[in-house]
């Protein structure tokens, strides 16, 4: 029914290489108009990598500035613009789409035995929307930048800032719909496209995690969309929704902003938790411990995530009674998160663990996420947060979640499914080395920030008192190691795409429908719709059934 789906009319592939989704057809159009979820995933992979390195560039500039106490490299204004662009790029254009749009897009149909997502056109459309939003934001950046911080708090963003708030607001508004449509597509796909026999509690936990994520995307994202639109209307046309002169309340903006932006953290971390659940059981050669608890805790995190947003506003003029409610509710999120961590550890217990690269990222994830999560409990304390609010303690806390958690899971997942995506193996030695570099670099970057934040160094200033310099030098040194840890995989993964060893269909001996397809899979994934007869992660029965494969 569509030209891009039809087999290529000419040039049949050589007899030796089987046809798969990458060589089914060639050319610019075959990618720009593709409806194949796997190709769209690769489009996302390329574009989020671009945005990641742009955001990373700003991180480098920030850390360079902070090597010395004086604000000598950048003016205060440029520093403000740098951390704004770092935050916007990383949050909206890298972290939120990262795992869902790349790995989720690629894997969910494969994992549930479907030919594609429920709405392939919508899927492609959401990539275009994402790119449109990204390009507008890039334009705002090139045209002179934005200095409001990624949170765009009113009234600064609506009234006082002289930077390109309007363009960026529209860019983020547009981008939101990409996220909504992806989530919508996943929910429908998971509901309606599962293979026969694949009941809800046989689904891979990766799929459960994405289901929970999608719920947040569909129900949370529209709120920030309308909120940012209101900011744009106020800035552009003087509709003073949050303007105290008209009796408006700037704190209302914060409420509506965090109603989405707190759950957005779970959009980042939940898919990563899904990846970890897959990896930990595969490399422990053991059925996952407490399947239903992990599945349900994903849903619980998604729901609780909507009840806690006020903990970003403890000191911003919100009623302290509401603060107490939000503080209490915030602690609740700790429960499902801890359930997951305990279940992963219990899965490893008495498993036969192998230390391949993806598993190293799992170890990194569990350790760093635990630190990030536990410090989260500290800052959820109404009283303690008064001291820690807007210090580097907060910066360290959310980087432990977003980088130590979400990015570790993303890289672990990319390595784990790399053979499936490209049909090639990555060089294991380099990969292990870079995982180690990343772990060391990350901790050296962000652990000192806990200390310096606790001592009282506020975030978002380009200068600081001299007694904080030693921590900042450590942090900047760590950041350069961390940067190396991102560059090495970038290089060897690109290299392996062409020169890596050919991958067998199931290099890890993993369970799951995606591993029953060839590497890389064909355009429609399965020759015939598979029928599922066993639970997920049936690793214990491996010895008996191995002969039959």
């Amino acid at each position, binding site marked *: 029914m569509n030209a891009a789906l039809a087999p290529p009319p000419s040039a049949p592939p050589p007899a030796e290489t089987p046809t798969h989704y990458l060589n089914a057809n060639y050319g610019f159009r075959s990618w720009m108009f593709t409806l194949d979820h796997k190709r769209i995933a690769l489009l996302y992979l390329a574009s989020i990598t671009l945005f990641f390195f742009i955001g990373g560039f700003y991180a480098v500039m920030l850390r360079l500035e902070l090597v010395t106490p004086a604000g000598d490299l950048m003016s205060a204004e440029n520093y403000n613009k740098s951390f704004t662009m770092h935050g916007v790029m990383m949050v909206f254009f890298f972290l939120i789409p990262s795992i869902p749009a790349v790995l989720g897009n690629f894997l969910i149909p494969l994992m549930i035995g479907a030919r594609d997502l429920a709405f392939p056109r919508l899927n492609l459309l959401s990539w275009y929307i994402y790119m449109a939003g990204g390009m507008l934001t890039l334009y705002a950046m090139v045209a002179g930048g934005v200095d409001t911080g990624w949170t765009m708090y009113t009234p600064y963003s609506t009234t006082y800032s002289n930077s390109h708030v309007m363009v960026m607001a529209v860019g983020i508004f547009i981008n939101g719909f990409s996220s909504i449509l992806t989530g919508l597509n996943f929910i429908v796909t998971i*509901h309606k496209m599962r293979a026969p026999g694949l009941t809800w509690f046989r689904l891979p936990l990766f799929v459960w995690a994405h289901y929970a994520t999608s*719920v947040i995307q569909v*129900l949370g994202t529209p*709120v920030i969309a309308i909120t940012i639109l209101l900011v744009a209307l106020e800035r552009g046309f003087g509709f003073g929704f949050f303007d*105290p002169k008209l009796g408006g*309340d700037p*704190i209302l903006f914060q*409420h509506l902003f965090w*109603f989405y932006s707190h759950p957005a953290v779970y959009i980042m971390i939940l898919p990563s938790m899904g990846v970890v659940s897959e990896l930990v059981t595969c490399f422990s050669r053991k059925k996952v411990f407490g399947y239903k608890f992990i599945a349900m805790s994903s849903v619980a995190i998604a729901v609780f995530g*909507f*009840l806690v*947003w*006020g903990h970003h506003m403890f000191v911003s*003029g*919100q*009623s*302290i*009674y*509401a603060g107490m*409610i*939000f503080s209490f509710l915030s602690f609740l999120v700790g429960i499902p998160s801890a359930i997951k961590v305990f279940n992963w550890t219990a899965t490893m217990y008495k498993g036969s663990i192998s230390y391949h690269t993806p598993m190293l990222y799992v170890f990194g994830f569990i350790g760093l996420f635990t630190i990030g999560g536990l410090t989260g409990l500290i800052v959820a304390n109404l009283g303690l947060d008064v001291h820690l609010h807007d210090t580097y303690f907060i910066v360290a806390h959310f980087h432990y979640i977003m980088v130590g958690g979400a990015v570790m899971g993303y890289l672990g997942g990319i390595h784990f499914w790399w053979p499936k995506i490209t049909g090639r193996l990555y060089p294991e030695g380099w990969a292990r080395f870079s995982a180690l570099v990343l772990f060391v670099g990350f901790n050296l970057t962000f652990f000192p920030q806990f200390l310096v934040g606790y001592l009282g160094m506020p975030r978002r200033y380009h200068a600081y008192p001299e007694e904080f310099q030693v921590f900042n030098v450590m942090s900047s040194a760590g950041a350069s190691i961390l940067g190396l840890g991102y560059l090495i995989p970038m290089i060897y993964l690109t290299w392996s795409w062409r020169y890596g060893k050919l991958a067998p269909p199931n290099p890890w001996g993993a369970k799951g429908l995606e591993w029953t397809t060839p590497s890389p899979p064909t355009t429609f994934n399965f020759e015939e719709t598979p029928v599922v007869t066993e639970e997920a992660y049936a690793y214990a029965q491996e010895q008996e059934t191995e002969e039959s494969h």
Partner: protein
Amino acid sequence: MSSHVTPKKTYFAVFGTLMALTALTVAAATVDLGGLNTVVALAIAGCKAGVVIWFFMEVRHARPMTRLTVAAGILWLVIMLILLSSDYISRGWLGRSQGW
């Protein structure tokens, strides 16, 4: 989901109900009920919305998942409104103005 063709007269009856409720809401708005005016207006609007969802949008013949989706959308809106109002209701409780 096999198609369920609803008789025309059901739709006409629904339309009549909606018209009647519209008239009712205008009539109720002219009477001073104190603080209850808003409640009544919202209740009638809720009834009208319910009728549209139930009959015009055919939720009465829809799958459970569709109903769950509708319920989730409404529930999330309620969550937002309740937690928002937890702040705005209690702002003045400390006995001093908090600036708004």
